[in-house]
């Protein structure tokens, strides 16, 4: 950057501020690459458990969206300095989110492409591999994320932590609602799940959706396990991109 001297006042000014709109490229990221069609029937989205009329479902918490969600472009020009930062903090956060989405998509595609067995047994293996990966990641996340204070007095606190902090850290938004029947079953609802949002908005690709949720189920299970709760997490999709995660606490 050259310093120009203003002839009148003698003050120096920087020449040439370059303006870049943040996240311009990330915003235009297209839909994920098409997956090789496996030709077999995927399991239909799992039935929602716990919806029996006997249990009283209580709406524990309806979260509010954190931040701008994917795709908002903050106003204002960006300054570049020499060879310095091209994206500010906002842009870097969006870059992280995009990287994770792409990596996740590739992971799923890779696991499915290699599977020669079109029968239901082979797919279950891949789903459980994905879930296992998510589990290990969740374990590490459960150790790193919680704050400096002992925040969890009871299970509900842990679930709220999942909905707010973990979701915000991984997906840059909070879970939309948390319901429980107070008997060990929790349903976490996300109206626009970031990993599904770029696929479709309705019923298209409904059969393909479960494999994109396996990693996240494992993530939830792993985080819960580090925080001392054994659970079983399943996911279901009624219409993209909304999905529900059901957490059933296993008491031994």
């Amino acid at each position, binding site marked *: 950057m050259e310093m120009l001297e203003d002839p009148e006042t003698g003050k120096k000014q920087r020449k040439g501020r370059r303006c870049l709109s943040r996240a311009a490229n990330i915003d235009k990221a297209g839909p994920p690459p098409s997956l090789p069609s496996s030709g077999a029937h995927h399991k239909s989205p799992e039935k929602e458990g716990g919806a029996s009329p006997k249990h009283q479902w209580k709406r524990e918490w309806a979260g509010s969206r954190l931040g701008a969600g994917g795709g908002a472009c903050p106003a204002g020009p960006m300054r570049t300095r020499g060879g310095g930062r091209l994206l500010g903090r906002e842009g870097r956060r969006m870059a992280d989110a995009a990287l994770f989405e792409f990596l996740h998509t590739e992971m799923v595609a890779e696991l499915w492409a290699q599977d020669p067995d079109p029968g239901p047994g082979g797919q279950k293996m891949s789903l459980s591999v994905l879930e296992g990966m998510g589990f290990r990641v969740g374990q590490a996340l*459960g*150790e*790193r994320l*919680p*704050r400096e*204070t*002992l*925040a969890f007095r009871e299970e509900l606190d842990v679930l709220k932590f999942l909905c707010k902090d973990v979701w915000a850290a991984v997906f840059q938004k909070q879970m939309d609602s948390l319901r429980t029947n107070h008997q060990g079953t929790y349903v976490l609802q996300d109206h626009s799940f970031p990993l599904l949002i770029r696929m479709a908005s309705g019923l298209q690709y409904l059969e393909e959706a479960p494999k994109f949720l396996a990693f996240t189920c494992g993530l939830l299970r792993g985080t819960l396990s580090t925080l*001392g709760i054994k659970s079983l997490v399943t996911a279901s999709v009624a219409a993209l991109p909304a999905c529900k995660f059901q957490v059933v606490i296993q008491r031994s």
Partner: protein
Amino acid sequence: MGWILVTSAAVILFLQNYPLYIRSVPTENELKFHYMVHTSLDVVDEKISAMGKALVDQRELYLGLLYPTEDYKVYGYVTNSKVKFVMVVDSSNTALRDNEIRSMFRKLHNSYTDVMCNPFYTPGDRIQSRAFDGMVTSMMIQVC
């Protein structure tokens, strides 16, 4: 769950009341430290349950002095994932202040978090990370 003991003499890390990591300097009195630490686990559990009943929102991870014996002082710390850190310090070492102990525990906690994030480490195993060893050694050298 896990417990870590650090003493001016030893460091032990506990998970579910079995040790994840034990380190002591000097190494002769290890058995005595094991015994001391097992008794201190009860005190840790007591403190955690006492805190649980407290209405205060800010419950600290640092538990403070668990109990003083004639030769040693025992300090405790617990993480959100129920891993207990126990530190046994020589009583003659009067120069150690509370905030120094706190900072040592914080360093331990950070290193433990790094160990958890290591893909070659399976949670629940004994800790064999050289980086962790190095951090503990440097900490104990400072103290002794």
